[in-house]
C-alpha cells in the first residue's frame, strides 16, 4: 500500500522544513518526502494543495477520565476525539479514580488505547508523583516508568509540601523522568471560582489570586534549578508565571511550560453572567496577562500548546458557578483556536505553530513523535491541516463524550483534514469532498 499526500506545504519543525512537496507513506511508514517523490504504484493520492502536511500533533495534557470517570470520557471516545483534532500522540493525566499510581493501571491504559475501537493514537500516560496524589508518599516511580509512564505529576492536586516536591524531583532526576506541575498554592486559591479581580468583585465570586499561581511556579522553578529535575509547567495563565519561567530558563533550569487555548483567547470578563463554560483552572485572567501570553508564545518562553482536554458531564457544568467544575474539552478545537488566534494574526509562523503543537511537546516528553523523518516514529504520524478552511464549531458534532466548551458556535479558520497514525485514522468530510472534486 503506497499513499501519496500530494502538493502540500510540508512543515516539519524537527528539521526546520517549510517546502511545497509530497509525502509518501508505504505500508505504515513515511518513506519519502520532498519535491521529487516517486509517484509510481500509488494506490491512494490525497490532493493536499493549499494544505499543510505536518508531523502528527502531540498533546502533552489530556484527561481521558478512565478509569473512574467513564460518564465524562473514555479512552475510546477520548482517543477518537484526539484523532479528529489531528493528534497522533496524547499524554493522559493521572487524576483518574483510582489515580495512575500503580503499574497495572498503566498496563490497563495502554491496552485500552491499543484496542481496535480506540482512535488509533498513541497514548503516553503520566503517572502520579505521589501515591493517590495525596502529596505525601512517593509512588513507585521506577516501576511506573518501566510500565510506560513518560512523566510524573500530581496534576490537579499540586504538591504543597516543598520537601515532598524536592524528594519527588530528586527521584525523577535519577529515573530520568520529567515532572509536570500544575502550579497552585491551595491556601491562596481556597474556595476560589474565577480570577480575583474586577469581575469577581462585581459578581460576588471568591477569587483565585494571581499570586496562587506565581508563587508555586517560582517555587517549582527554584526546586528544578537546585535538583536539576526537568520540570514542565502546565497551563500558565499569569504574566508573573511566565516571567518566572523566563527567569528560570535564563538561570539554566531545565524548565518548559505550556498554555491552553483558553488562556490565549479569553479574559475573565467572558464569565459574563456566571457562564460556567468559562470556568477553568487556572482561571481566565486579564488583558494584561493575555498580551504577555501572546508575546511569550512568539518569543518562545511558552514552549508549547496543550489542549488541557477536561471533559465533564453536562449536569456538572449546568450548576451554580462556584459548584461547577474547572475545565473544558479541547482536543477538537485546539487547531482551530490556535490557527485563528495565533497563526492568522501573525503571532506564530506556520512552522512555529506546528512546533508548539507537535515537535516541542514531543521533545519535552522525549516521545517518538513530532517529526516526519522516516524511521524516527514507530509508524507514520502525519496530519493534514487546511489553514484556510473556515468552519463553525458545533459541540453536538464531536467525538468526545462531553460537551463542556466555551467554543460552541465559534467561527474558526483552520481545520484538521486528515490524520495518519500508521494508516488513516481520521478524515474530515470537507476534505473528502474537495479531494473528490480534485479527482474528477
Amino acid at each position, binding site marked *: 500500500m503506497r499513499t501519496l499526500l500530494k502538493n502540500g506545504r510540508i512543515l516539519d519543525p524537527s528539521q526546520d522544513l517549510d517546502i511545497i512537496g509530497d509525502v509518501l507513506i508505504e505500508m505504515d511508514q513515511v518513506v519519502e518526502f520532498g519535491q521529487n517523490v516517486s509517484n509510481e504504484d500509488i494506490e491512494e493520492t490525497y490532493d493536499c494543495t493549499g494544505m499543510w502536511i505536518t508531523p502528527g500533533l502531540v498533546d502533552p495534557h489530556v484527561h481521558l477520565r478512565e478509569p473512574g470517570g467513564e460518564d465524562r470520557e473514555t479512552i475510546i471516545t477520548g482517543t477518537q476525539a484526539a484523532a479528529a483534532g489531528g493528534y497522533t500522540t496524547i499524554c493522559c493525566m493521572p487524576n483518574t479514580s483510582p489515580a495512575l499510581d500503580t503499574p497495572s493501571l498503566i498496563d490497563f491504559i495502554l491496552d485500552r488505547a491499543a484496542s481496535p475501537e480506540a482512535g488509533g493514537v498513541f497514548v503516553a500516560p503520566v503517572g502520579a508523583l505521589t501515591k493517590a496524589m495525596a502529596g505525601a508518599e512517593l509512588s513507585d516511580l521506577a516501576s511506573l516508568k518501566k510500565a510506560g509512564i513518560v512523566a510524573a505529576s500530581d496534576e490537579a492536586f499540586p504538591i504543597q509540601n516543598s520537601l515532598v516536591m524536592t524528594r519527588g524531583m530528586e527521584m525523577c532526576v535519577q529515573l530520568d523522568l520529567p515532572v509536570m506541575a500544575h502550579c497552585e498554592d491551595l491556601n491562596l486559591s481556597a474556595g476560589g471560582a474565577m480570577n*480575583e*479581580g*474586577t*469581575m*469577581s*468583585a*462585581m*459578581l*460576588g*465570586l*471568591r*477569587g483565585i489570586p494571581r499570586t496562587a499561581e506565581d508563587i508555586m511556579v517560582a517555587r517549582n522553578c527554584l526546586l528544578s534549578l537546585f535538583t536539576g529535575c526537568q520540570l514542565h509547567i502546565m497551563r500558565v495563565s499569569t504574566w508573573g508565571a511566565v516571567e518566572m519561567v523566563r527567569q528560570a530558563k535564563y538561570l539554566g533550569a531545565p524548565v518548559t511550560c505550556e498554555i491552553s487555548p483558553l488562556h490565549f483567547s479569553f479574559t475573565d470578563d467572558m464569565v459574563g*453572567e*456566571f457562564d460556567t463554560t468559562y470556568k477553568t483552572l487556572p482561571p481566565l485572567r486579564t488583558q494584561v496577562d493575555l498580551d504577555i501570553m501572546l508575546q511569550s508564545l512568539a518569543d518562545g518562553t511558552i514552549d508549547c500548546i496543550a489542549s488541557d482536554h477536561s471533559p465533564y458531564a453536562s*449536569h456538572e457544568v*449546568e*450548576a*451554580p*458557578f*462556584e*459548584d461547577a467544575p474547572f475545565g473544558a474539552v479541547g482536543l477538537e478545537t485546539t487547531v482551530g483556536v490556535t490557527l485563528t488566534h495565533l497563526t492568522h494574526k501573525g503571532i506564530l509562523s506556520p512552522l512555529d505553530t506546528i512546533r508548539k503543537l507537535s515537535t516541542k511537546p514531543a521533545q519535552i516528553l522525549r516521545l517518538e513523535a513530532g517529526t516526519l523523518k522516516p524511521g524516527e516514529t514507530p509508524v507514520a504520524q502525519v496530519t493534514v491541516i487546511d489553514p484556510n478552511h473556515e468552519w463553525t464549531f458545533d459541540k453536538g458534532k464531536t467525538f468526545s463524550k462531553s460537551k463542556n466548551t466555551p467554543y460552541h458556535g465559534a467561527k474558526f479558520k483552520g481545520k484538521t483534514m486528515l490524520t495518519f497514525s500508521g494508516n488513516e485514522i481520521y478524515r474530515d468530510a470537507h476534505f473528502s469532498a474537495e479531494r473528490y472534486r480534485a479527482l474528477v
Partner: protein
Amino acid sequence: MPRNLIAIRHLHREEISELLESAADFKDRVTGNKPIPSIGKKVVGMLFFENSTRTRVSFEQAAHYLGLKTANFSSSGSSMSKGETLKDTILTLRYERLEGLVMRHKASGSATLAARYFGGPVLNAGDGQHEHPTQALADAMTIMERRGSLDGLTVAIVGDVEHSRVARSNAWLLSKMGAEVRFVGPRTLVPIPQHIGMLPGEVFHDLHAGIGGADVIICLRLQKERMQEGMLSSIGEYARMYQINRETLKYAKSDCLVMHPGPINRGVELDDAAADSDRSTIHMQIENGIFVRMAALNWVFGSDEDRSPKSVDKPKSAKAKKEVTA
C-alpha cells in the same frame, strides 16, 4: 421572555424609579386600607436554601396582600437534600406549574441559573455574595421617605463589603439614582481598590474619612466566620475600628441616617445608642421591605401580557426548553 428581578445592576434608572413609586403606592394602599389591584390567582414558589426570617416573612406578607398563594420549599426535607441538582429542582417546580419563584441560595449566580430553567419570573431573594435586590429597594425607599430623594446624597456602606450581597445591590441602586457611594472597611473585607473597577463606589479604610460628611451610613452584618478565616483578629478590634456609635457618628452629617439590613450584632457594627436613636431607620427598612416586594412581584408579573398559564402543558425536549428560556 419573562421579566426577572435578579440584580439591581441589570436595571435602568427608570425601572428603579418605577419600582420605588409602585412600592410607595402599595404602602399607601395597605396602610390606608385601600383596595389593592389584583394580579390574578398565581402560585409563587418560595425556595429558600439558606435560612432567612425577615426576607421570607416579608415576601409571604407581600404575596398575601397581593392575593397570591405561596408554596413553600426549604432545602432540608426537600429533594435537594436527597442529592437532586439545582437545575432539576427548578425544572420540577416549573412542571409543578408554579408561576413565579422567589429564591435564596448560598451560591452567587444561582438566581441567574434558576431563571435560565424556570421559564417564569424569578425574584432573587439573595444569591451568595452577588446581589439582594429587594433589600436595596427597601433601603432606597426608606432613604427617600426620610430625605425626599437619593440624588446627590453621600452614602457610606460600612463593614464586610467583600462578602455582602446587600452592599453590591445598594451600591448599584444608589449610584444609578445619583448618590455617591463609599465602601468603608478593613483591607481584608473590602475589595482592594484595583478590583473595584466594576463596582460603583470609592474605597475607604479609615472610618473617620469614610463617613466624613455622609448623609447615610449603611452598616453591614459581620459574620463570625471572618475571624476563623483570618480576615479579622477579633470582634473587639473590629468594633474599635469600625463601630457606628455616638462618638463616631460625629464625623457624619448631624442628620445622618443609620441603616442596617439586619440581623444586627449589637455592640459590634452598632452600639445601642446608634441602633435605637431617631437617626436609625432599621424598623422602617423592615416594614418597607414588604412594600418593595409587593412592587417587585407586581413588576415581574405585570410584564406578563399573556396571563394564561405558561406553555407547560406541551412538554418539550430539554433542549427546546433551554432555547425558549435562555
